[in-house]
């Protein structure tokens, strides 16, 4: 039996709001680092995680410009995860729920993220060794 598995993560949280997002991205990174194939189905606010127009900003309280503040953007992290997967010889298939994307007007996602539907979630779950749902409370 192969040690490399297919794991699916289902994400619901919008960006810049919850520590669940950081933990979810850490889990995905760890899985990819170990060579597992990863599927992500993002729905509701989580479809904005990969929105390509996110912008880093300055922080007047810290006295830092945008570069010095180095504020992490989830879209950058996701792009790097997709690159990590390719370098590790595995894959990260990130699907945004199209209905949720249209509601929020965030169709412009970083490269490698695709648009889908709940059917993709069903297909991913069927083809996975395990599924973890990280839902908004």
């Amino acid at each position: 039996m192969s040690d490399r598995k297919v794991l699916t993560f289902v994400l619901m949280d919008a960006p810049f709001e919850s520590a669940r997002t950081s933990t979810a991205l850490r889990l995905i990174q760890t899985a990819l680092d170990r060579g597992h194939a990863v599927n992500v189905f993002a729905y509701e606010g989580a479809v904005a995680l990969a929105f390509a127009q996110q912008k880093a900003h300055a922080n007047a309280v810290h006295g830092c410009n945008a570069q010095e503040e180095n504020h992490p953007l989830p879209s950058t992290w996701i792009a790097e995860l997709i690159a990590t997967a390719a370098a590790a010889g595995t894959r990260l298939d990130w699907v945004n729920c199209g209905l949720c994307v249209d509601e929020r007007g965030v169709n412009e996602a970083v490269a490698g993220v695709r648009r889908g539907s709940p059917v993709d979630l069903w297909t991913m779950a069927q083809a996975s060794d395990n599924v973890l749902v990280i839902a908004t409370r």
Partner: protein
Amino acid sequence: MAAGRSVLIASEDPFEHDASRLHALAIQLRRAGHEVTLFLVQNAVLAARATCARSGLPALREAAVEILADDFSLRERGIAALELHSAVNAAPLYVVIQLLAAGRKALWT
């Protein structure tokens, strides 16, 4: 039927969100013969201090639930290994991936 294997992932501050139902589930699964790991992450690790009066951890230990706490979350909150309740072991997040890859049924709260 073979006993099940589960990983319950707790992410919420136990002082803001009641963890008793999750703990009860873990204990019931153990009584049904399941292997159960409770993995604390984010603010759920605030229950891991030995000095925490309402952690619920002794009952979990008595039921032989394995209790792990994300080492990154512990460091973020300044909780040192020496401060941990004796029922808790620090662990990297990779353990969750290992358990998922091994087919554990997973529940995130």
